[in-house]
């Protein structure tokens, strides 16, 4: 019969070998910050709180910032003024669109009335949009290129300067 010592040695060696193999494997790309990047943007269409039909596909030829937010999320409130400033800097070449996540349309209207921002906001029946884009928590923002591809993803609150730098970098890349 195998002695207890031999059994322990075999089990131990196997465990070390397994640990070694698993520990040295590539962990793969960071899904949270890389999800959807370089892929065609998922569908994004609906009726804005202003009552207009809005469709991401109709924005081809321009950059679009797709912002997922909630009126009850503090980082969303903090980032909002940055988004307002950014949109004022880019009245023609970049479109901003916000998608409310798990929020009442009335709260969203009130939020934009008091905090500013005159871009399209989708607030009704946004559940399927959230799932299509794989959003797990707000705020999350995506930069969609003029050809309809997701060029970058920002997890957490965004800042005007960082967004500006990202846009400059990406537009240079796409041009070249």
């Amino acid at each position, binding site marked *: *019969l195998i002695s207890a010592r031999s059994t322990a040695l075999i089990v131990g060696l196997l465990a070390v070998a397994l640990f070694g193999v698993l520990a040295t494997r590539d962990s793969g790309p960071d899904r949270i910050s890389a999800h959807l990047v370089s892929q065609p943007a998922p569908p994004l269409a609906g009726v804005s709180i202003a009552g207009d039909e809005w469709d991401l596909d109709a924005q*081809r*030829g321009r950059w679009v910032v797709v912002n997922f937010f909630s009126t009850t999320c503090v980082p969303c409130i903090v980032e909002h003024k940055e988004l307002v400033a950014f949109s004022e800097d880019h009245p023609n070449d970049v479109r901003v669109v916000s998608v409310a*996540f798990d929020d009442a349309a009335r709260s969203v209207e009130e939020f934009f009335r008091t905090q500013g921002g005159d871009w399209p906001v989708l607030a009704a029946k946004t*559940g399927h949009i959230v*799932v299509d884009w794989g*959003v797990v928590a707000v705020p999350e923002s995506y930069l969609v290129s003029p050809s309809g591809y997701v060029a970058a993803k920002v997890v957490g609150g965004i800042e005007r300067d960082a967004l500006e730098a990202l846009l400059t970098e990406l537009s240079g890349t796409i*041009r070249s």
Partner: protein
Amino acid sequence: MRLTTRSNVLWFALIIGAITTLAIAEIAERPVLTHADRVHRLAEEFACPVCDGQSVAESDVPIARTIRLSIASMVDGGATDDDIRTMLVARFGADIDYTPDGRGWTSLVWVLPVVVASLAVVLVAISVRRWQGKLTYSRKLAKPLILGMVSVLAVLAGLFVAQLSGSRGLGDSLSGEIRSSTRSLLIEAGVSPIGEAISIYTQVLDLQPSNTEALAYRGWAYRRDGNLEAAMADLEAAVQIDPSFPDARVFRASLLLLNDEPARAAEDLVALDALRAPPIIDDLLSATRLRERISSALADEGSLVLALDLLRSGLTAAPRSAGLLAERGWLLVRSGEVDLIDIGVTLLNEAVATDPLNPYALTYRAVVRLVIVGDRAGAESDVLEFESLLFQPTELVALLKSEGLIS
């Protein structure tokens, strides 16, 4: 020791029986009664993406509620468990799937429990026999051999379980064909690398030789892979079987243009305009400017009427398309006919009015303003707008350079 003694045979039979029972218990058919039952069962099979140790069924955070609604919507829409699993894994990552894949390293989660359980049974049996005093010193050397054989058997059984459990739903039977649905094969092909996709489409066509979708998409995969002859054969077959399948029309038109056959490509797009194509097809046409490029190729070979007809056909469906208006205006101006030039200038103005940031409308109008109208200030104003665009197609930059409008 002889391994074929009655006692050892019984032990092996017991172990194999236990492993088989384990496998069957894991993947046996579990009938689902209602849609609500199925939604709940599926929700239990996915982890809430932002929770700690809770499934989508258990959690009440917004994203879990949203995913539950999404599952319910897909179930009501007739989606299979695999469709839903594929969708959720694509959106939220493989980590949320509580039923891990049976391939690669992930299969360890299936293999290891079987191996450990089997070894535990054997060790307990050996310990009991030693405690009973039935194990003599002369048999000691044979035991490592038995353990080794059991280990190999257990690993094979574990791999068997992993293979069966990997990508099947709980409702599938043990002996069923894992990938019997051509629909799930087509979905799988859509997210596979080209070589693998071609192989999967071929599997579908083995099952259903006249499956138009598989033919069209295998043709497109061949085209992307550089095998233009095979691509054309598949696309011709697809259009012949189902002339109303829009995807096949667009793919074939693109290939015909590549083959320098713009007249036949135009026929496909005109036929497409008569169909009720999904919006994604319009998006594809718009993003690739396929219609404009075919029109331009027709005009270049002297078939201006055909080119204009093709653009008119597109404008009937999308009268506010700045790209089509601009292309039509540009071709009319290029014709050199005085009457047509006037109409062309009007169309270019309309294109810019429709979309002031369309690079083609701005460029064509700038050139026309400079060369035909003699309005340099207007041309420079259009060029200024063009230069402010982030996306500047290289052929337009070259055109403006050739006219001396930019340096």
